[in-house]
């Protein structure tokens, strides 16, 4: 079994004719992902990157079989694009779009929950199962197949850390961005559950950042469930001042809440190894593995 995406994934690209949609359709196909159709309202009958374009998801499904969606449509239309994918039974739905109003995300996540659909994002680089397939905008070549599951709130930082792991000979089972927005579909706890039940994952890396409580919640979960797989983490934003949004809508320290130091402390309390700088992560994972084998 592969998590979220793999060889079995047959994806529709919503917003396929836009710059990003079209460019990344090409890269996803080159990586080996099956992209079976595209959707852009008003462009039905066209073709983009050799993929047939339909006006609606439903129209595409009359002609082809699909089981996943990746969304590139502009923020004002993203909520409905997500609902359209959910209505059609596509699962997972990966939302690359950033700057979606929080209220729209809130309603969309409630809709997804009601229909049992998994949303990755919004404002995510997507999901990759190295060596199999990717639904996302990440550069494929920094990843390598292996046993470490990676979940992150950031895009480029994930690529940075994946490249350290790859260079150190540590491959990855699945890497995904939960998204840089205040409200996202999957959170760290959901992902920890998935990695726990995934046979191809033997250790987990969490890449957090300032703002919110996703890291603290993950730490609570690790403690409460006596999480069986080793977890290492990095938290970005120690140098960030309070009250300022650091690029991501969700990356903001409010009052005394959401600081990197508090998150790192909480992780350490529950036995997660925390890297001071991202390049330490491979070493921490190797130490942890050695410690586990000794036990």
């Amino acid at each position, binding site marked *: 079994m592969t998590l979220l995406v793999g060889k079995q994934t047959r994806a529709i690209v919503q917003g396929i004719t836009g710059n990003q949609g079209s460019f990344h359709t090409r890269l996803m196909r080159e990586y080996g992902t099956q992209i079976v159709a595209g959707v852009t309202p008003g462009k039905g009958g066209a073709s983009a990157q050799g993929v047939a374009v339909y006006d609606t998801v439903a129209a595409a499904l009359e002609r082809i079989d699909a089981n996943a969606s990746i969304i590139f449509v502009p923020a004002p239309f993203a909520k409905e694009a997500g609902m359209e994918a959910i209505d059609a039974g596509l699962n997972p739905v990966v939302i690359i779009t950033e700057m979606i*109003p929080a209220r729209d995300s809130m309603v969309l996540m409630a809709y997804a929950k009601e229909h049992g659909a998994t949303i990755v994002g919004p404002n995510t680089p997507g999901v990759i199962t190295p060596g199999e397939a990717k639904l996302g905008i990440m550069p494929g070549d920094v990843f390598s197949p292996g046993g470490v599951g990676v979940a992150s709130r950031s895009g480029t930082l994930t690529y940075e850390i994946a490249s350290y792991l790859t260079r150190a000979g540590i491959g990855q089972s699945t890497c995904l961005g939960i998204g840089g927005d205040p409200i996202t579909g999957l959170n760290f706890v959901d992902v920890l559950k998935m990695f726990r039940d995934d046979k191809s994952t033997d250790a987990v890396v969490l890449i957090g950042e300032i703002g919110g409580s996703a890291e603290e*919640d993950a730490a609570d979960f690790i403690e409460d469930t006596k999480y069986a797989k080793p977890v290492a983490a990095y938290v970005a934003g120690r140098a960030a001042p309070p009250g300022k949004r650091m690029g991501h809508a969700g990356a903001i320290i409010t009052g005394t809440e959401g600081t990197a130091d508090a998150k790192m402390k909480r992780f350490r309390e529950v036995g997660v190894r925390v890297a001071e700088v991202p390049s330490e992560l491979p070493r921490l994972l190797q130490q942890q593995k050695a410690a586990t084998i000794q036990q």
Partner: protein
Amino acid sequence: MKLFEYESKSLAQNLGINTPRGGLASTPDEARDIHKRIGGEVVVKAQVLVAGRGKAGGIKFGSKPDETRDRASEILSMTIKGERVKKVLVEQKLAIKKELFGSIVLDRVNKCQTVLASDQGGIDIEEVASKNPEKILRHRLDPVFGMRGFDARQVALKLGYGGQRLNALTDLLSNLYRLSVIYDAELVESNPLVETSDGKFVAADLRVIVDDNSLFRHPEFQERSKEASAEVTPLEAKARENGLAFVELDGDIGIMGNGAGLVMATLDMVNHYGGKPANFCDVGGGADAEHVATALQIIQGDQKVHKIFINILAGITRCDEVAKGIVEVKKVVGLKKPLVVRMQGTNFDEGKKILDSAGITTLEKMDEAARLVTSPKVA
């Protein structure tokens, strides 16, 4: 986007929310005239976006119009936490029976809006939250159906009200919720929310923060969102006009990178090796040469910057475009500060070649580059 108290209250009044009678003044004389008009005793409040104006002396009382003029004059000459006071709100002093706290916040964890309320209003609510967390009532709202009448009634009842007062508070809470929906607010907060001795509920203070990502569907805030606010430094305003995510800091190493997480990690790493970042600057994904050049010029134009660290992990972004941007700046205005460039990823070889031929060294590892830029070798 944070709204001023007077802006928040003007939105609230249109929805039938009680606020104290009063007016906005930019001069001491205007403040005096407002007092004359409304009579009684008044409170003069600094209109600033930063929190904590009360403790900083930004709220004063006036029993006569001349006194109000003097108090207004004092407040109008104040700078509170770096924000200059330009306007004051002059309002009638309420006959307070009880001070409550009521807010509707975006709840990230539960993916909904949540009502936070307390009968311990009027003071710093974070203090209440840390000392007496049981004094804060939390009531989650359905993400689709929002606040229904019974939600508001449950909150009013738990705050200890019955009869007419329960209905009055229910109405006020419902209207605060309506405000959050109509204006896509991530926060609506009234502290204190005052119960007056004649049984009314009045939003004595009101703070609204509008979700920046929803501004595209709020033409009413279009002009306002362009105004330079005290929370944005002139340098930040200039950078943001140019499409950069930019936060000014107080160190001396200018930072540019692609992706919020990577740039945050870059600041952390510079700190870790003993340096002090002068800014956070994210050029975003897929930045072209021109965008990079603009960012570099803004950073090197900052007086306090002594050296610059460019950290690019290219995915959608291409190293050759970044290199072209840097070389462009070198040609046109010159590189005015020592520069350390780290690049990796898409079109690295092409990018390195461009920088090599311009005499600029490129490093491939982030750690190495961070160590170099923080060492005395680069000065």
